[in-house]
């Protein structure tokens, strides 16, 4: 994890993480399979996040879950996980560990800083803790994960230099 | 011509405190029957009536307008005039129009202030260059003035432009010297005045409500001022054309969308030509009053509200300040929206239809102003002769059946 900036009551760190997009119906067969592989029951409420020591699993839409591995597992192990899931013809697990970059943002001014870059409504009544969202930030597609102590933002890697610069700029100005 | 305008007529009227100017046009009540009714009192509609009366000898004509003359897109656009279109059919149509513009002030004896200050289209990447050079080549072969400008030549013509130090540097441009801008209201008023002189009834505050047909033939139009019979009806109602067509059972390939424009506060002359950039969406010219006239983009959704999203304005302005660093301290004075009717191939429809006596002139999308006299001229021909002029033959409704489109979208993004 690399520190991007710490200033004006905002702290931003960046890191990459192993990550898989899982597509499927969310039926009991689907849930059982994931539960078996991860020991974590996928959330059934849309946008809800469940987590354990090693995983963040968020339901981003009726047929899409994002799974983030917090520990540095081996890439091949994740590849293997996808392979196992993909044996099921009605599911698709895609390894996107190399496709995205994460930013961990915390501090008192987190939301006022982020609202320089996005129209997104961060108020607790509209964006509850332990939920996720997909939105635009600095004109770039992002995933937001509102965790208990901080917020995680991920974007595609080709945008990450630009996005990091925009975050720094938003903290400074 | 009954009303003769010149510096002498102004001087004469000055003595009477400008109180004795004659009315530009009458305000008649509709007659029971007309040979032709034009629905829509914008530049295209008024021009159609003018040419019908002048070139085709029709005298019993009415133009009916829901609001006030020129209050639709005629009075809401950024007044850019050019003819440097890619395809032959478009080039001929817009060039026909441009030639009419060049003599219009004299013809109407009303100054439409056509200012041939040139129109520049910028290239910001290799793909733009290819497309622009292709267009210049086609233009020249069609006899249309169009030339390539190097970056240095652009800098000389528009010294305030930032050509290098921006995300998408300016690599060159096409330039049409005969292009320019005109006074938008003047063309509506000028056509209206001269059409009125030839006996055309111009009826404002008269909303067309239903086009009545019988056995596949036009009967007339129901309006807020009652039913008016007609032999022929030309619909030139821009954003509202498809709504009216629907009343006659005709479905048109049009979608009505908001298009916005804005002006800055007036300043002394700073930009002497029209500069357009499709890639960064920044169209600008400076009016004779000193305002920067800036065109923004369309919203994606259908709407008849004459307003669009602020995000569209933002997109344009951020491109403007990047391209012209002196504009950082400029201010937006007014913004507004119009309703543009867009065809799938971004080309207009000037055509008859399955209903006998019913004609449409629509689909001008974001760029109809430049075509005003040309469109009116060939539409009048189409209505009078019941068949298209060779210039508008390609712009028929049938092209959406055959697939012979006139696709002016320009090409897709570069691949590989």
């Amino acid at each position, binding site marked *: 994890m690399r520190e991007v900036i710490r200033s004006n009551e905002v702290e931003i760190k960046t890191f990459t993480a192993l990550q898989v997009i899982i597509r499927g119906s969310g039926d009991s067969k689907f849930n059982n399979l994931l539960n078996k592989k991860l020991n974590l029951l996928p959330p059934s409420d*849309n*946008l809800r996040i469940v987590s354990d020591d090693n995983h963040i699993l968020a339901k*981003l*839409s*009726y047929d*899409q879950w994002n799974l983030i591995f917090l520990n540095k597992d081996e890439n091949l192990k994740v590849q293997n996980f996808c392979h196992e899931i993909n044996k099921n013809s009605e599911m698709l697990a895609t390894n996107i560990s190399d496709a995205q970059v994460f930013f961990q943002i915390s501090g008192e001014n987190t939301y006022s800083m982020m609202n320089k870059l996005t*129209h*997104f*409504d961060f108020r607790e009544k*509209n964006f509850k803790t332990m939920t996720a*969202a*997909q*939105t*635009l930030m600095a004109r770039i*597609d992002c995933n937001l994960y509102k965790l208990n102590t901080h917020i995680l933002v991920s974007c595609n890697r080709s945008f990450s230099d630009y996005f990091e610069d925009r975050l720094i700029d938003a903290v400074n100005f | 011509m009954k009303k003769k305008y010149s510096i002498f007529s102004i001087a004469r009227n000055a003595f009477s405190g400008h109180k004795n100017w004659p009315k530009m046009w009458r305000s008649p009540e509709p007659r029971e029957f007309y040979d032709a009714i034009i629905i829509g009192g914008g530049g295209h509609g008024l021009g159609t009536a003018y040419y019908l009366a002048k070139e085709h000898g029709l005298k019993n004509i009415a133009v009916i307008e*829901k*609001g006030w003359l020129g209050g639709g897109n005629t009075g809401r656009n950024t007044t850019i005039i050019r003819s440097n279109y890619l395809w032959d059919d478009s080039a001929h149509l817009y060039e026909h129009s441009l030639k009419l513009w060049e003599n219009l002030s004299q013809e109407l004896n009303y100054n439409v202030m056509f200012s041939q200050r040139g129109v520049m289209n910028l290239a910001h990447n290799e793909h733009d260059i290819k497309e622009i050079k292709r267009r210049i080549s086609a233009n020249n072969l069609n006899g249309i003035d169009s030339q390539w400008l190097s970056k240095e030549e652009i800098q000389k013509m528009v010294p305030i432009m930032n050509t290098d130090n921006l995300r998408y540097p300016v690599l060159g441009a096409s330039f049409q010297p005969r292009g320019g801008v005109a006074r938008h209201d003047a063309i509506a008023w000028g056509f209206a005045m001269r059409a009125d002189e030839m006996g055309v009834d111009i009826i404002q505050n008269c*909303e*067309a*409500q*239903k086009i009545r047909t019988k056995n596949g033939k036009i009967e007339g139009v129901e309006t*807020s001022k009652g039913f008016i019979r007609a032999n022929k009806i030309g619909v030139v*109602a821009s954003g*509202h054309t*498809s*709504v*009216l067509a*629907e*009343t006659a059972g005709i*479905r*048109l*390939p*049009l*979608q*009505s969308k908001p298009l916005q424009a804005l002006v800055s506060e007036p300043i002394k002359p700073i930009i002497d030509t029209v500069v357009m950039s499709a890639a960064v969406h920044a169209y600008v010219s400076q009016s004779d009053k000193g305002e920067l006239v800036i065109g923004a983009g369309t919203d*994606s*959704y*259908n*709407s*008849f*509200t*004459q*307003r669009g*999203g*602020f*995000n569209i304005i933002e997109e344009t302005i951020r491109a403007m300040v990047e391209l012209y660093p002196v504009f950082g301290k400029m201010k937006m004075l007014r913004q507004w*929206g119009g309703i543009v*009717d867009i065809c*799938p191939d971004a080309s207009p429809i000037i055509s008859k239809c399955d209903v006998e006596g019913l004609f449409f002139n629509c689909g001008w999308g974001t760029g109809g102003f430049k075509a005003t006299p040309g469109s009116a001229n060939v539409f009048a021909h189409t209505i009078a002769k019941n068949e298209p002029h060779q210039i508008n033959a390609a712009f028929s409704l049938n092209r*959406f*059946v*055959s*697939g012979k489109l006139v696709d002016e979208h320009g090409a897709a993004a570069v691949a590989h």
Partner: protein
Amino acid sequence: MLLIECPYCGPRDQSEFSNGGEAHVKRPDGSQEISDREWGEYVFIRSNPKGLFYERWVHSHGCRKWFNCVRDTSTDEILKIYKLDDPKPPLKDFENKIQTPSGEPDVGSGNFTVKK
């Protein structure tokens, strides 16, 4: 800028969405024989009413899901948003605010703001 309530993500600025034009237009199945005209209508012609309009949106910068909506194009008011597999709500469920095909509503139009 409109505020659109994605049925899956909640209300978001319109900048996150793309408009998909008229809803409930069935694509002719390739197995049917249809005329050039019928096919041309499917490809090129969509309703363009002033007033109540069934349309499609996709949350392109969010969950990428499509959904339908009833919107009044004379005021831009979104009257109902529903999922693709929800039934098409009948027109009679909504108030038509314009009296004539190209008329203006009482309020909400860009054209008139004065009571006559």
